[in-house]
């Protein structure tokens, strides 16, 4: 079957990829591989393509970015495709720049107040959503709760992209200034020393899981954790009197911090609250570890950072130190924001979307409109609204059957990484990204290109995401579901990583990713754990095999295969 035939079925009205008109609008559309491999369910695709797209354009407009008006998105076979909306005339660029000068000031003047205010706003909105008792709510309440969840998700993306554009702008400036004044950029270890050694919410959750592993041992539950498979842990613990006590505390922790799923950009997998297996699996791994990298690393990194700050400031002229320090502090906050926003924004909002959709899914299934509650992920909001008030009047099963079939087909057919207009090549497409000056495109999507250095005689080249040298066993992991295969001391080789991968960073020796930039997840978390991260290797997951011995020298941007 031709894949085009599946996609043209019309899944997301207004945003289905249409080769003719969309390639006329822009000659290059890039697959968002980080978020949409494996393919999205139709419902999550709807949320992303509608609301993330809105957020990016909102953020670019609110800040009046001079050269770019955010990104446009399309949906094709479960993949999200993006292109940039470039400002077309020099005159408009100048006008936008005038407004930008005013709009960017809050980021410089009081970054913490800005971010903290948004976190409070969103937690307040989440609390509002959580207040409804879904079991006992009537159908009208459930439907309006669903609409409210969409509004909260939309607001989440506005804050997300406004903050991200502003934060990354500051980071890119810092990087440029460092290159000019100090002679280092974000591919050099010295640069990373300047911005590592900070706490953030995601790492705090890791720390809590570590604390739980110590508690489990003190309660004499070590043996249960060692002997039981992760999926059975909750059940086995609940059957033991001390285990029950442990689970009571653990569930209280999840109630506050478990609003997240194994996959960040999807809603068809359970949250930690529904199924604590991923969190318990991490506790299980920690139970057998003797020391927690994070704690000891944090102290060392903080010392290193303070030393690096002193050294760098000494090389800056005294009259320049004021603004340089302000900018340095801002750049340091970029890393914290990059990690923390995933928790407070993406994960939390999506977990609540899942909760709202499943609540309706259960009613639909009970009324016979759906086979099972989870089938709701194959609908789009307009179809959910169709049966929202009187589900017994509708049969949505044929839609689900058709979409599920298409979704399976999408997973079998890899999505092309970029769709280009006839006569347009990949170099021109990358040039378009660079020309946009879009801070997110530059810092998360494009990154720096590795420079091949023949004198190193390396097998693969990459750029430094986090400094260091490590030798160990390569472990090629293509998606989150296989994270459990990672063994202590391995070097993780992956296409890219996201916050749901954070837990393994505490016991691996290094990371090699096909794509990444200095503000992508692998680089930030690698720096906090003090392990080397080699990025933009492009072919790492193709050329390396699990079990191979490799040496990663992130400082030099080199990777060596030790046995072949």
């Amino acid at each position, binding site marked *: 079957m031709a894949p085009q035939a599946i996609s043209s079925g019309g899944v997301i009205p207004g945003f289905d990829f249409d080769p003719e008109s969309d390639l006329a609008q822009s000659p290059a559309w890039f697959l968002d591989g980080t978020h949409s491999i494996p393919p999205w369910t139709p419902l999550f695709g709807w949320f992303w393509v509608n609301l993330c797209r809105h957020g990016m354009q909102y953020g670019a407009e609110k800040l009046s*970015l*001079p*050269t770019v008006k955010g990104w446009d998105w399309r949906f094709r076979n479960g993949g999200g495709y993006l292109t940039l909306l470039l400002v077309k005339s020099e005159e408009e*660029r100048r006008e936008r*720049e005038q407004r*930008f*000068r005013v709009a*960017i*000031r809050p980021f*410089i*003047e009081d970054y913490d107040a800005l971010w*903290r205010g948004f*976190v*409070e706003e969103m*937690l*307040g909105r*989440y*609390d509002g959503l959580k207040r409804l008792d879904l079991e006992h709510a009537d159908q009208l309440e459930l439907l309006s709760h669903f609409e409210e969840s969409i509004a909260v998700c939309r607001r989440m993306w506005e804050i997300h992209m406004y903050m991200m554009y502003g934060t990354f*702008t*500051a980071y*890119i*400036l810092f990087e*440029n*200034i460092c290159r000019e004044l100090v002679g280092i950029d974000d591919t050099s270890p010295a640069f990373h020393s300047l911005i590592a050694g900070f706490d953030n919410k995601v790492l*705090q959750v890791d720390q809590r899981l570590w604390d739980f592993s110590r508690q489990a041992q003190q309660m004499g539950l070590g043996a249960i954790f060692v002997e039981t498979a992760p999926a059975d842990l909750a059940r086995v613990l609940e059957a033991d009197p001390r285990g029950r006590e442990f689970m009571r505390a653990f569930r209280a922790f999840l109630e*506050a911090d478990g609003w997240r799923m194994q996959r960040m950009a999807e809603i068809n997998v359970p949250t930690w609250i529904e199924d604590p297996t991923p969190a318990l699996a991490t506790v299980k791994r920690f139970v057998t570890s003797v020391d927690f990298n994070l704690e000891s690393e944090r102290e060392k990194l903080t010392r290193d950072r303070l030393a690096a700050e002193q050294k760098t400031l000494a090389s800056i002229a005294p009259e320049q130190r*004021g*603004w340089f320090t*302000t*900018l340095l502090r801002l750049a340091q906050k970029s890393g914290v924001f990059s990690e923390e926003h995933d928790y407070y924004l993406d994960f939390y909002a999506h977990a609540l979307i899942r909760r709202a959709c499943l609540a309706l899914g259960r009613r639909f299934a009970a009324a016979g409109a759906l086979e099972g509650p989870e089938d709701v992920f194959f609908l789009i909001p307009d179809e959910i609204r169709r049966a929202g008030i009187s589900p017994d009047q509708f049969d949505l099963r044929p839609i689900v059957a058709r979409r599920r079939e298409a979704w399976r087909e999408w997973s079998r057919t890899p999505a092309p990484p970029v769709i280009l207009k006839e006569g347009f090549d990949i170099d021109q497409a990358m040039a378009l990204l660079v020309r946009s*000056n879009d*801070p997110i495109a530059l810092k998360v999507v494009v990154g720096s290109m590795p420079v091949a250095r023949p004198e190193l005689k390396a097998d693969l080249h990459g750029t430094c995401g986090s400094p260091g040298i490590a030798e160990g066993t390569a472990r090629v992991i293509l998606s989150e579901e296989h994270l459990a295969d990672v063994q202590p001391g391995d070097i993780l080789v992956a296409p890219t990583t996201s916050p749901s991968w954070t837990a393994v960073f505490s016991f691996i020796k290094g990371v090699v990713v096909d794509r990444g930039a200095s503000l992508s997840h692998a680089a930030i978390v690698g720096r906090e754990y003090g392990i080397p991260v080699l990025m933009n290797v492009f072919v790492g997951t193709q050329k390396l095999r699990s079990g191979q011995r490799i040496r990663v020298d992130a400082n030099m941007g080199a990777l060596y295969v030790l046995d072949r």
Partner: protein
Amino acid sequence: MRDPCIHWLHELGQEHNDVVGKKCANLGEMTRLGMQIPPGFAISVDACRKYMELTGVSGRLTEYFARLGDELKRSFSMQIEASRCAREMIRSTPMPTELGDDIEASYELLCDRCGTADVPVAVRSSGAVSMPGQMETYLQVRGSDEVKRRVVEVWESAFNTRAIAFRLERGMAVERASIGVGVMKMVNAKSAGVVLTVDPLTGETDRAVIEGNWGLGESVASGEMSPDHFVMMKETGAIDRTIQRKARRVVSTATGTANTDVPEDLRDVPCLTDDEIRQIARGAMDVERHFGAPQDMEWVIDRELPFPQNVFWVQARPAKYTPRTKAAETDYLVEQMARLFRR
């Protein structure tokens, strides 16, 4: 006054900072400089403490926060929830009869002095230490029951989320917070606004900057509209005026305040006369000299009294301003960021 929990504003001075909070103590101090403030009284910080202890709220709060433990420091969501609970505890606890009676008696005395029954008053927080987010103000409050209700609401505000977060960050006891309250007669406002004895944007201290609008000062403080902007050079007395089109203003009503349209013929008229501008700027400069630091003050012009008796002061505090270098640094970074998009 019989009860040490309540003090007349004009009997107070700087030395009463810890007794009644900064706002009330400063207002008292200003009367010593011959400046005019609306008649009113202060309810001491100790009254708040007594209320908490006598009613048992204090014990309940201590117990509640002890239960939350250290986790509270790390979790914003817990802070939000803790604030909600603490405020609920206070809101649902009426004040002890004796204290309530004292406030009632003082309010009646104030009514007698003003020659009006149920005189409308402003009820405002007055903390002994500056705390962000503790700026509760209730305007046009009438009748002793209403006054008492608002006083409890000001006490409650010591447990809003920002105040809780502030105490946690500073390592202060989170479960204890007492705050003073000022109760003063509402001025029948023609216009109102703020004056700073320093330019807050540049840090220049050679001028006084006044912003004002028709009606109550709330429209200026909220920053939602563009007020009239007057700059007076301290040395020469030269005045520079930027008159805005003022379409909306906040006015007193029988039960509170309301946002209303400014009559068409007043919209483009300056909300202060030159005499009033000079009077305000000079008053602020006096206070600046007295306290030895740039001031941020709130003024109100009475609708009926003749100049200069029509100028009233309702607040004075040290000005927060960006020193020159800081603003220049920000300008420089903004310029550099703008350049990123010119490649």
